């Protein structure tokens, strides 16, 4: 079959900016980012399976400032994708399509994802100190 470029309908450029569209693309970005995080998770599990020496090395890498920065990003991405995923499931069930509701639930998703991120890191730093 020959491939030719067909005319495309207008895309992002014709719409004025609204918060829900940023939340929407963020769901996809965090999803792809978390796929990268899954690779790091596999590396961490393999390191644990290899033995104490290599695992200590992995923990040092993840505990460095850049490692912690990446983990912080993945923590928030996890909770954002989880919360917004629940929002998507509500839409699938037919609930929450009203514009006002969609804005409110979007706001809740952002706030709860940040709170969960803070909670997880408080647990992590408590473990580090203890």
């Amino acid at each position, binding site marked *: 079959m020959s491939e030719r470029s067909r005319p495309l309908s207008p895309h992002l450029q014709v719409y004025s900016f609204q918060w829900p569209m940023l939340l929407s693309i963020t769901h996809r970005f965090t*999803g792809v980012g978390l*796929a990268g995080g899954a690779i790091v998770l596999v590396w961490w*599990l393999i390191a644990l399976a290899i033995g104490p020496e290599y*695992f200590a090395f992995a923990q040092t890498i993840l*505990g460095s400032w850049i490692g912690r920065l990446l983990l912080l990003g993945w923590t928030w991405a*996890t909770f954002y994708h989880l919360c917004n995923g629940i929002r998507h499931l509500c839409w699938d069930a037919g609930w929450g399509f009203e514009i006002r509701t969609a804005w409110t639930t979007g706001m809740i998703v952002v706030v709860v994802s940040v709170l969960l991120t803070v909670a997880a890191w408080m*647990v992590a730093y408590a473990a580090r100190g203890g």
Partner: protein
Amino acid sequence: MSVRTPLARARGLGAAHGGTHHWWTQRATAVVMVPLVLWFAFSLAALGPADHATASAWLAHPVNAVLALVLIAAMFHHLHLGLQVVIEDYVHSRWVKFATLILQKFITIIFGFGAAFAVLKIALS
């Protein structure tokens, strides 16, 4: 008037030749991951900079090992379906799309099995 054959109409699959399996599987794996991800994320946070003995003792506990395996299965199935949709949306060249989809499938399977094997090795040793 429909130009579909009676068999095609009975199957009800339309031009995509597929049903709602992809959609349902993505939702089912999402639902199962809601509690599992919360449990796993906070467990890893509580482990923090744990040494090898602490971390492997935690993962070797039968409850944690089984839940981790279920999470790995759901996670890799879910991310495979998600990445597939992303590739289908943005890669338009037929053969590049085909190659990327197959490559993505292989890589996902390798990493998924790697994760599961690591958990089993720790749990069973």
